[in-house]
């Protein structure tokens, strides 16, 4: 909620005299949020793997490549070259789509110690922040996500073939995909942020 208020306040200012600074701050906030989500996903999957037995782990390794993530339909740059070739806006839109596609399925994720809805809330806030960033970059042009009508498809695939044996597998795949997508968003946002920062030194 705090981030929403902050973002709204930033947005109310509009494209002010120092848009870059505000954008920088927004980017920083977004990146930090994504980093948190990514770390959370890493923790979830590691907890899941530790709870499995060795034989099940071997099975998981084999199964992993058979299925894909629910976000595979989103085309995203998969290497540095492609990423740097993409514009900031593209990166932001892709990030937005990725976050959006996980907004609802994350509720089914076994949170472990964290409550189930926490991830979903964070994702929602992140999405709003990205929208702000897109709006700030677009300079007035509205942004309509393209993948909104296709949002139901993942859910369809998600729940298909969910059996007792496959529950474990699906959980694992879900966690793995989530973790990967979070890392993607983090990378895209970081690259976009560094591209917009006036200083050459992006790391600080």
């Amino acid at each position, binding site marked *: 909620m705090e981030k929403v208020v902050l973002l709204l306040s930033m947005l109310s200012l509009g494209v002010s005299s120092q848009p870059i600074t505000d954008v920088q701050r927004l980017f920083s906030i977004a990146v930090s949020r994504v980093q948190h989500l990514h770390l959370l996903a890493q923790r979830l999957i590691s907890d899941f793997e530790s709870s499995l037995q060795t034989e099940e782990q071997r099975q998981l390794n084999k199964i992993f490549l058979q299925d894909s993530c629910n976000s*595979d339909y989103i085309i995203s740059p*998969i290497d*540095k070259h492609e990423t740097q070739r993409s514009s900031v806006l593209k990166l932001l839109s892709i990030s937005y789509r990725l976050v959006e596609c996980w907004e609802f399925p994350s509720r089914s994720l076994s949170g472990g110690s964290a409550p189930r809805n926490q991830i979903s809330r964070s994702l929602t806030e992140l999405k709003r922040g990205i929208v702000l960033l897109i709006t700030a970059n677009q300079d007035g042009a509205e942004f309509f996500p393209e993948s909104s009508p296709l949002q139901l498809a993942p859910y369809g695939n998600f729940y298909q073939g969910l059996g007792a044996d496959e529950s474990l597998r699906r959980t694992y795949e879900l966690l793995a995909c989530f973790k990967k997508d979070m*890392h993607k968003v983090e*990378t895209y946002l970081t690259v976009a*942020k560094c591209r917009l920062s006036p200083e050459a030194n*992006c790391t*600080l």
Partner: protein
Amino acid sequence: MMKTSAEVNLLLLLLVFTLHVKGMRYSPPGKPALTRCRSPEKETFTCWWESGSDGGLPTTHALFYRKENSEAVYECPDYRTAGENSCFFNKNNTSIWVSYNITVVASNALGSTFSDPVDIDVVYIVKPNHPEMVTVTVLEDKGWPFLRVSWEPPHKADTRSGWITLIYELRVKLEEENDWEMHLAGQQKMFNIFSLRSGGTYLVQVRCKPDHGFWSEWSSTSYIKVPDYIQREKPMWVLITCFCAFIFLILTWLLHMNGHSLKDFILPPVPGPKIRGFDKQLLKNGKSDEIFSSLVVSGFPPTTSPNCEDLLVEYLEVYVPEEQELMEESKDLHDICLKSEGCTSDSDSGRGSCDSHTLLMDKFREAKEEKRQRDQEKSRTGTEDQRQQKDWEEEGLTYAYEDMVSPNISSGRVETWPSLFSPLPQYSSSRHSQKSSLEKAKKHCFSDSLFPPGSTSFSLDQGGQTTMEAIRSSNREFSLRIKQPHLLHSHTQARCQLQAHSEVNISSIGCKQALGGLRSPAPHSAEYVEVQRVNEENTVLLQPVESGHGHIDGCSQLPLGKDYSRVQGVDRYNRLLLKGEVPQEGDCLYDYQDMTGDGTENCYTSSSVPSIQKPTACIHTVIMGHDEMVLAENGYIDTLTARTLPNY
């Protein structure tokens, strides 16, 4: 034999074959295994494997990989770049966020063996190179040094674009220690290390890690030496300084507490003069003349006069009943004549008699006033000589009283005075006799210091001016308090005669004798008369005491015979009892330096004189007579009347 050789050959062949078979066992290669795959910058990656047994045959290895969601199998594009048993995937072949399924196959002539597949995602196998350009410098922060470590990310890692985010870590340790001190630096490329050991050598290393990956290797060690910034001696000096300051404070406090007693100890207070009657202001003025003059008391110490003359007035007053009318007459004179300048001496001058003396002087003063009035009334009655006579009588009396140093002059003695003076005119013996008597009379003389040389004599008959002057001058000389500065030519003898009450008669003779005038100033010489015996007629026989010149240093000359100079007492018949004593040498304690050989005689006192001021029983009177004698309080003998009839 043939059979044996064949068997041997067969055995040999068998043996060779066995050996051959052993050495020539071929098998398919062992199972290789992928050891690791690493990506240094998240753009390329390399996989390494190790081969198993080769099975005796040359074995080749091949790596095949398959990307996710694709069934296409690709072989490793580069087996050489990364070294032996490695496969290098360049940028074109590397995809991020894509799972790779990699398998290594070892194959030989007999077969091939596949390794276990490994699924990797490049994102999670990133292990960057170690940071580069690690520099360590020593900087100072307000005199205290610290280390500043700075580095650069590995050149392959693209941190500028944000493609890869690295966090750094460094470790520091002293050269002689074993434990490293870890510091997490985050994403910054610079770090400060404080709290350094003075003069120590430090080792610094840095490594980095991507946000999701593996730690890099440690960079090469950087050595740095910290300069000596803590001086060893300084704390000791600080301690010493503090200790000394503390001691100093304690001493100051002690000094302050005991300041008074210390001051008295170091600088004891100088006692002031405790002379009664001495004006301390004279000391402060610093004029030595005044000081000494104030210390000098008239009549003290007697330097030249014989011991008998020191403040001792011994009176032998011979009372002549038929001369009472003269007494009365003289009494008036006496009353009048006693007036003079009062003895202004105070109680501290040693002239204790002055107290009573002043009383007398006051009385005389009154009498004198009356007398003067009477004179004025009489005006020109009488001859001038008479007047002079009266005058000098008056003055003589006054001066006599002034000069009288003997203490304890009772008021009763005042009355005797006239008796002394009155009969004087009657005795107009010859000058010669007076002289002789003078010579022989022991007088009560004062010290020479008081009486300047001069041997004026006193004669009542003549009433000469000279005598008057003598008296006057002697008076003035004698008493310092009298402020009449003209010199005196007084004769001590005359003086003495004035003093001695009982000797007035005698002294008158002597004075007449010496009236001849003012002799040249000569040192005071006292003439003493020694009482030889008392004849049956109550006459005191006197014997002149010859004094020599060498009386200065001591009593070199002693009278022959016994010395009847001590009055023992007065018997009931009003007779003067004199004590005869053998004079002893060395009894002359007086310092009569001014004695000259004028034929004067000195008076020896047989008794030891403890102090000059003490009146000694230096003989006084020579008077014979059967007059009644009054014993003074302290040994003086006062006679009411005196009659001088010197008999030799």
